[in-house]
């Protein structure tokens, strides 16, 4: 039996792909997460109210999502409802999180895969024609981190969401400045996305596939007009019909964890079936995006690839639609008065159980806490990347079969493996935590 170990780059964290084959027959393709810190163990005994400060450290890329999920889990346990304006500020944090993440995934992780016969090692290797790409990509990404800083206090490991609300609103002048910055960023993001789309179509023509396109279940906590704040979790069936909707704490009735011995990240099934989360799940689930420019892109996307769309490389294009949506949505929210009003309600800590949900860049993220005597007794982090682990492995098998044939192993295999994994934008620090 042959074994190929393919290292991965341009993803968040440490992972590799191991393909087993016999002759031209592909036996398995495993996606192995190779790091582990043990957050669900070492937070045991921590003061519950300190969780929103500890858990952002699960991931420096997704720290905002963990920060807010944590606060929402405590609010669920304490039965406290934050005022609407506090929710708005948190939504702006999430939109900043998405802008930062989608810009990074689009332009730094995946776009270098598209040009020429072999792709490029990085964003910095584009030719003269795309010389302005890197500085523009940095600028779009920075708009996202600036938005997190404004709403969340700092762009990595933010601190402004607290039980009962947020520590402060957004002063009118700062909101106006941010509004201008986002308005200036939007056309840049569109230019970059147009170029991205063009190169993506070029790639499709060269490799003549968009990868695994078998219909699948999709998981996302989005509704029209949403801002990644997460209310209910929805499941879309492979035929595009709504299959189920459930609150965060019911996750065990729908999602089962599949243990593995070859990775520090387990996978997830929906009622025994393979599922997918992340950008394509959201775009498939929403009837429309709800902002003008994003909706234009969505129409174009659906004309080209249908609805629901299933080919995995479309996760990449869906991320671009979301980048435009998040910029437009954040501009809308910044037009509201977030300077004055109620940003915080008092609360009484109590023991018990609570679940907090947000729609993180990679899908629904749940923090589930059990609190005893004010201390964390047990936690469960339900991580979006885990929902995609089995879908990644199926897509890797599809790619391996395409490029391991009676003629031998094509050099395209390694590139295809990179493209498959990056389409799902897995976050290994989160998945293993």
């Amino acid at each position, binding site marked *: 039996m042959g074994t190929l170990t393919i290292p991965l780059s341009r993803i968040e*964290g440490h992972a590799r792909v191991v393909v087993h084959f016999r002759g031209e027959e592909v036996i398995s393709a495993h996606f192995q997460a190779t790091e*582990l810190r043990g957050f669900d*163990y070492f937070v*045991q*005994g921590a003061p519950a109210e300190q969780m929103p400060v500890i858990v952002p450290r699960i991931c420096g890329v997704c720290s905002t999502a963990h920060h807010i999920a944590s606060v929402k889990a405590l609010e669920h346990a304490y039965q406290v409802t934050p005022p609407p304006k506090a929710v708005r500020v948190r939504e702006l944090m999430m939109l900043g999180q998405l802008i930062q993440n989608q810009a990074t995934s689009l332009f730094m992780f995946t776009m270098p895969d598209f040009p020429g016969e072999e792709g490029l090692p990085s964003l910095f290797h584009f030719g003269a024609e795309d010389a302005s790409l890197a500085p523009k990509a940095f600028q779009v990404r920075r708009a996202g981190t600036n938005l997190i800083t404004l709403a969340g206090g700092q762009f*990595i490991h933010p601190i402004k969401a607290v039980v009962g609300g947020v520590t402060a609103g957004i002063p009118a002048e700062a909101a106006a400045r941010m509004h201008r910055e986002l308005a200036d960023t939007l056309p840049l993001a569109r230019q970059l996305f147009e170029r991205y789309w063009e190169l993506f179509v070029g790639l499709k023509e060269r490799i003549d596939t968009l990868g695994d396109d078998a219909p699948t279940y999709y998981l996302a906590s989005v509704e029209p007009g949403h801002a990644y704040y997460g209310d209910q979790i929805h499941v879309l069936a492979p035929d595009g019909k709504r299959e189920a909707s459930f609150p965060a704490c019911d996750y065990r009735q729908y999602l089962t964890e599949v243990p593995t011995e070859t990775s*520090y990240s387990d996978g997830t099934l929906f009622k025994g079936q393979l599922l997918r989360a992340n950008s394509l799940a959201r775009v498939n689930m929403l009837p429309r995006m709800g902002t003008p420019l994003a909706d234009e892109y969505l129409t174009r996307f659906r004309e080209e690839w249908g609805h629901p769309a299933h080919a995995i490389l479309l996760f990449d294009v869906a991320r671009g639609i979301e980048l435009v949506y998040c910029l437009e949505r954040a501009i809308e929210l910044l037009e509201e008065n977030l300077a004055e009003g109620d940003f915080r309600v008092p609360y009484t*800590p109590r023991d018990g159980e609570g679940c907090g949900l947000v729609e993180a860049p990679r899908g629904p993220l749940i923090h589930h806490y059990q609190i005893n005597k004010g201390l964390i007794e047990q936690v469960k982090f339900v991580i979006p990347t885990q929902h995609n682990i089995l879908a990644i492995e199926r897509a890797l098998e599809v790619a391996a079969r395409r490029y391991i044939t009676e003629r031998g192993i094509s050099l395209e295999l390694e590139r295809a493996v990179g493209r498959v994994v990056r389409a799902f934008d897995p976050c290994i620090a989160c998945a293993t935590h």
Partner: protein
Amino acid sequence: MSTSFAVLQLSGCAGCEVSLINAEGWFQEQRLAYMPLIISSEDVPEVDTLLVSGAVRTDEDMYRLRHAARQAQRVVAVGTCAISGGVANLGDRPEVRELFFADNERRHVPRLLPKPRPVDAAVPVSLYLPGCPPTPELFMAALFDREGFEGSKTVCIECGRKKTRDRPKDLLGSQSGEVDPEICLINQGYLCVGSSTRGGCRAPCTRAGNPCVGCRGPSDGFISRSSQEWFDAIKKVFQRMTDIPEEQIDQAVRSPQLALFVFQFADYAAVPRDVEKVL
């Protein structure tokens, strides 16, 4: 000043890399030769500077670090995990450790070391960039001439909350109830360690009402001293400013439940660092 550098990421959260990307200023003038997060390349080439983030958590981390360090003129330990093992050291308690290893040793992936170790437990380090994560300014100071770079003081100095004569009688813990927006958190009875924590972050946590958990490590005065001296200094601050019984403070600082911040200092006492090497 370096002209080429590499970024080796061990077991961490990538927050340090995100902060480096936000520093931006380097990418026109410096050759980034290796950084798997954003560049696909085979192996660490010869470089002037190797930035290492994350803790040494697995035997693969240990191997990759020792392998990469040979390629560099100097090694810079970046962030709390690389300097002291980081937040995962909260699990360095017998009851947690046992459960953790029992659950995870079955996996056929890189073997976990008994505890997360700092980078200088494996290779010599020329410079330390403290912070969780270090600010973009620190990255620029590490990669370019340090001329004009001002060393940071303490979080307390950067915080700017008003100190009062209020002397709380009980410790409120780390976060609880409504926080006064103007008054020093210690005057309100919160367990804040900003008085001996390295600044440079501009105190966003304490300004927002969250007590400092010490994520940037000890200030200059405590870097090369034992953790006992550091604990004593915190106690003295509370004795001076509050009527909270000494036992309460002592217990809070030492218990793994309340003294979350101890995680950053776990290894400082074992390997005292030269103040000159800490930015």
